[in-house]
């Protein structure tokens, strides 16, 4: 394993300490592992909290700031945070208007956030949960844990964050978040697996000419293994899988996210975006907004995900609203 690392055990703390040093406008509680805005909860505004296993940076810590999250609670690498952390984040984010939890749909995340929501509720904080489950590579049936939450998490956090700034009520912010999730679908392909400090070697071994299709963001293998093919063919399959599951509705354009998983150069992501744009153009789907870069990563995994979110004028307006976080910034 080659990483800039002091030791596997201190990895998360060391990285968070560096994050804290780099972002003086955020407050990082290294003990409890909670990242909040230095100025505290915004009076009257609904709070927005998210968290999950680490290793997906900038998600979630990098999305704390104006127009997006009020607090994030990073768990160990690929391990959901514990309820205590979530509760601490909720407390910090609550100004009395209640808190929306954005939770990616993984068994561990759901259980830990549920426990936390119960505890926070006992403390008198009104809590709503938005579950993100956008990954079409996973069959959503009673025979699975349901779809994973991946790229759409960014969209939910951005758009719900803007709704909270707009002054929406607790229920309305949660509702917008759920709308974004319901309108979003993602699909990911890996060229290599990422390596966790704990494991010290890649989550799966992939021959030099093979790719994993339908991977998640935790180093788990995908739905199937394939020979490497030209990008245009791989991307066509990704877009196909997404649109088969949900084609944009009438009056909808799409927000398109081409997301790097950590080890893929930006130029390749743009190349992938070019294919996405071409394919959508051929089908008459209009892209109203796009984002290309590393946002929801899986350590050093080479690969990318494509997320399409059917968006009406309101969602686009909320998407465009100013945001200022370490990982996403525009309009301010």
């Amino acid at each position, binding site marked *: 394993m080659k990483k800039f690392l002091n030791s596997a055990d201190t990895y998360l703390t060391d990285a968070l300490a560096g994050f804290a040093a780099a972002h003086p406008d955020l407050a990082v509680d290294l003990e409890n592992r909670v990242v909040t805005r230095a100025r505290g909860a915004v009076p009257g505004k609904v709070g927005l909290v998210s968290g999950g*296993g680490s290793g997906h940076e900038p998600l979630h810590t990098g999305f704390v700031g104006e127009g997006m999250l009020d607090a994030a609670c990073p768990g160990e690498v690929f391990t*959901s945070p514990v309820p205590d952390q979530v509760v601490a984040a909720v407390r910090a984010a609550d100004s009395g208007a209640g808190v929306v939890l954005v939770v990616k749909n993984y068994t*561990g995340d759901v259980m830990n956030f549920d426990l936390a929501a119960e505890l926070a509720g006992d403390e008198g904080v009104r809590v709503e949960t938005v579950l993100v489950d956008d990954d079409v590579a996973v069959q959503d049936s009673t025979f699975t844990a349901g779809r994973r939450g991946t790229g759409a998490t960014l969209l939910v956090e951005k758009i719900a964050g803007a709704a909270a700034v707009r002054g929406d009520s607790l229920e309305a912010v949660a509702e917008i978040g759920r709308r974004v999730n319901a309108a979003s679908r993602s699909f990911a392909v890996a060229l290599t697996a990422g390596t966790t400090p704990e494991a010290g070697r890649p989550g799966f071994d992939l021959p030099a000419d093979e790719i994993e299709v339908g991977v998640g963001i935790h180093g788990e293998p995908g739905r199937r293994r394939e020979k490497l093919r030209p990008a245009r063919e791989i991307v066509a399959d990704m877009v196909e899988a997404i649109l088969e599951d949900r084609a944009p509705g009438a009056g909808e354009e799409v927000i398109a996210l081409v997301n790097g998983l950590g080890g893929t150069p930006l130029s390749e992501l743009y190349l992938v975006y070019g294919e996405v744009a071409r394919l959508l153009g051929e089908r008459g789907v209009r892209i109203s907004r796009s984002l290309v870069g590393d946002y929801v990563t899986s350590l050093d995994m080479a690969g990318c995900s494509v997320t399409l979110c059917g968006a009406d004028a309101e969602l686009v307006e909320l998407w465009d609203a100013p945001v200022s976080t370490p990982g996403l910034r525009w309009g301010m």
Partner: protein
Amino acid sequence: MDIELARAWVRAVAVAVEKDRELLSDLDAAIGDGDHGGNLNRGFAAAAEAVAALQPGSVGEVLVKTGTTLVSKVGGASGPLYGSALRAAGKRLTGESADPGEVAAALAAGLEEVRRLGGAQPGDKTMVDAYAPAVEAFTEAAGRGAALAEAAQAAATAAEDGARATEPLQARKGRASYLGERSKGHEDPGAVSTAMIFRALADTAAAAG
């Protein structure tokens, strides 16, 4: 089971998962995200420390403390599942010692909690596949008047058999379910760690004589 034995059990589990940390993480890497060993090691190390510092008034307090520590240290799926199970079990053991029948009922309450929280059925390729037969064997042995060591021995063997039997199954819960067909051919890490936990109980009880 008395307070000391409960404490020794938690210590024994901590020793076992530290030793087999890599095995558990490797099993998890094959069909999950490779952190199960690290998760349990972090959790049980903290739990062993916590119960060592504790002055418990009952057997149950040891288990509740262990469960609470797991919930607040582990995260992931296994943290709340094992944590809540031990909390539920502990709440049933209010005395300074418990006979095998009481322990059986407590273990069954823990299993109930895992099934309630996780929604897994036997055959879904989860810890339930080791936990359920272990409870059954323990209860059966206790029912026919077996001592703790003997009941725990039966439970450990049943859990180990149950864990091995998860290998051919297709996962329907947890991360491994994302793999569909590809989850077949690997033992479930949580089932294997459940077997370790029961094996640690059997060993501890046997040593206590």
